[in-house]
């Protein structure tokens, strides 16, 4: 008996899901080519300073100060709940320049030393090194996960799971390219976590498909996939929902450092759940059906 609450025909609408993801990826790739990425100082080297101005201010005045010292690349952002803080991000500058800028800003807004609430600097060579380390971590993790998948599933399922993973990663980085969100070490750490975590749902669904292939010998692949998705839908959603509850609160209540982790995890884990159901599973059906069509022989269909 297959008692489950949902009777959603996911496989029948495969084209719609693929179209949605295809369009998103297309927009993402265009954004990556046009916008590139907004690399953080972890990777490029540079300086970040945050001042508590304590009243409303015009960023133009700060730009004027930066121009005086011929700082070329900078980003100025009003932050804080009242918008009375300013975050200044620049390319690597010398200690003297930085000290002069700090002094000028303190003078301009009558600030004391304590109003410089945060400052951070990464040398360009160290930045390149961090970038290398994080990309290496990402590559090693991908290789290990793929090997694991290969052992865990047969070829068709591994392929479908890998495409799902790639899909999540591309969508996640696309969103960062589209909205020019800063890409820093926490982003890469989150990306790596999304990589491993979005396998959860895929594993649950594919395990069920494997069980159902044995118990539903008369059904075709599409039906088996649909039943498996519907049987596991509650847990697919709930497993992700508890994590999302935590991430939403981290994003909305937590400090910036927590937001830096929570945002990419929120996006990545949500899309990970989506792709397990709407990309990986339909893709598996597609691969299996193509395989079946190729074997026009009268051999019995084997799982």
């Amino acid at each position, binding site marked *: 008996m297959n008692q489950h609450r949902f009777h959603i025909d996911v496989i029948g609408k495969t084209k719609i899901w693929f179209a949605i993801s295809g369009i998103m990826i297309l927009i993402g790739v265009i954004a990556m080519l046009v916008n590139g990425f907004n690399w953080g100082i972890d990777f490029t080297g540079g300086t970040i300073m945050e001042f508590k101005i304590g009243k409303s201010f015009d960023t133009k005045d700060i730009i004027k100060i930066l121009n005086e010292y011929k700082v070329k690349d900078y980003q100025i952002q009003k932050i804080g709940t009242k918008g009375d803080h300013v975050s200044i991000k620049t390319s690597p500058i010398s200690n003297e320049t930085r000290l002069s800028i700090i002094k000028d800003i303190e003078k301009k807004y009558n600030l004391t030393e304590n109003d410089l609430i945060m400052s951070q600097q990464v040398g360009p060579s160290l930045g390149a090194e961090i970038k290398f380390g994080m990309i290496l971590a990402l590559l090693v993790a991908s290789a290990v996960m793929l090997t694991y998948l290969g052992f865990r599933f047969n070829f068709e399922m591994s392929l479908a799971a890998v495409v799902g993973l790639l899909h999540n990663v591309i969508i996640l980085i696309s969103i960062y390219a589209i909205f020019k969100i800063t890409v820093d070490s*926490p982003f890469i750490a989150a990306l*790596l976590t999304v990589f491993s975590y979005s396998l959860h749902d895929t594993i649950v669904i594919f395990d069920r498909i494997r069980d159902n292939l044995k118990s539903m010998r008369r059904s075709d692949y599409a039906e088996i996939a649909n039943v498996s998705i519907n049987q596991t839908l509650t847990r697919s959603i709930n497993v992700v929902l508890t994590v999302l509850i935590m991430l939403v609160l981290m994003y909305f209540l937590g400090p910036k450092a927590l937001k830096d982790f929570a945002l990419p995890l929120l996006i990545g884990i949500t899309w990970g759940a989506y792709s397990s159901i709407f990309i990986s599973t339909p893709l598996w059906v597609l691969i299996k059906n193509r395989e079946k069509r190729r074997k026009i022989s009268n051999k019995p269909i084997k799982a």
Partner: protein
Amino acid sequence: MRSRGFIKFFSVIIVAAIVAYIAFFGIKAGNYSISPVQDHMRLGLDLRGGVYVLEEAQGNVTQDAINKAIAVIRNRVDALGVTQPVISQQGSNRIRVELPGMNDPDRAIEIIGKTAQLKFVGPDGQVILTGANVKDSKAVYAQTQTGIQQPEVTLVLDAEGTKKFAEATQKFLNQPIAIVLDDKVISAPTVQSVITNGNAVITGLKDFQEASELATLIRAGSLPVTLKPIAYSSVGATLGPSALNASLKAGIYGTLLVMLFMIAFYRLPGFVADLALLIYILINFIVYALFNITLDLPGIAGFLLSIGMAVDTNILIFERFKEELWAGKSIRPALDAGFAKAFRAVFDANITTIIGAIILFYLGSGNVKGFALTLLIGVTSSLFTAITVTRFLLHALLDMDLTKNIKLYGA
């Protein structure tokens, strides 16, 4: 059966409550005392406020050169009176310095990075020698006339130093000569004889450790290492505590919502999973305290994420359990089947996250290691609480024979 279940269930709760009390409030019993976990947990600079500087030694440097540079920095930092500073080597040629409570990175960089100045000063305040005159200094064990091994520091001077030192030891016989590094007296041995060959020995040291520290400082002043800051960060005193408060708020509300969700969806098993989750949080705090883990904001992010993930295991098990109930099994066999059948998926799901966290911990940059570490500790310990603790409590609950209504089991 009923009373046994009752005892099993509440003994877990009571033990957990006692452990929680001791963990958060500490205990004193006779000579034994356990201080609260908060006292053992180190908070990162991003939570306490302070300056972090990463210095890189210039040119080809030996391990000895790095040791010397670290000794010099420690000497200076001690003079500043910073509490709980961290001065440690990173890689082959880098030194990481953390100064909690400081908020002026430029002053920190200046203090850490300036070239070491070693002077030998006579009782009249006149400089006898500088570091440039010292060729070598070692800590050794020497045998005294009575045959006891005692630690000493040897000094070898160059020709100019030998000549100046001979004059000085003659002039200041039986008087102390101060050895000063960066304006701090590191030793003031009394001249016991006139030294003309440029080979001096400092005795009267407490132990070999002290001798070796002194020798390292003297060598550091004679052949200083040039350091260059390649990264720093500074967090003001107000930002850290407010970030900690905001994180706590996010964590507490998040945990409560996750717990409510579990009860709403899974009823009795959900309630048991919530108890296991509280035990899980307790275990994580104890692990942080036992291993003196530094908790920074990325670490908190990893921990909070792991709370959301910890109940995943329970969800997978309880969903299986429901299916078995729907298939007509009675509660106890359905529960056992739920645990058995969900295990494979639970194991797979967690192992991928564990692998990811280990890779990130070893290859990731410093500011994400904390995230990888707490996530790793979290996911690993959640396997214990979500499987073993939950199963034990659920069995005890079934023994209590409270209800046969499968609706209360989430079905």
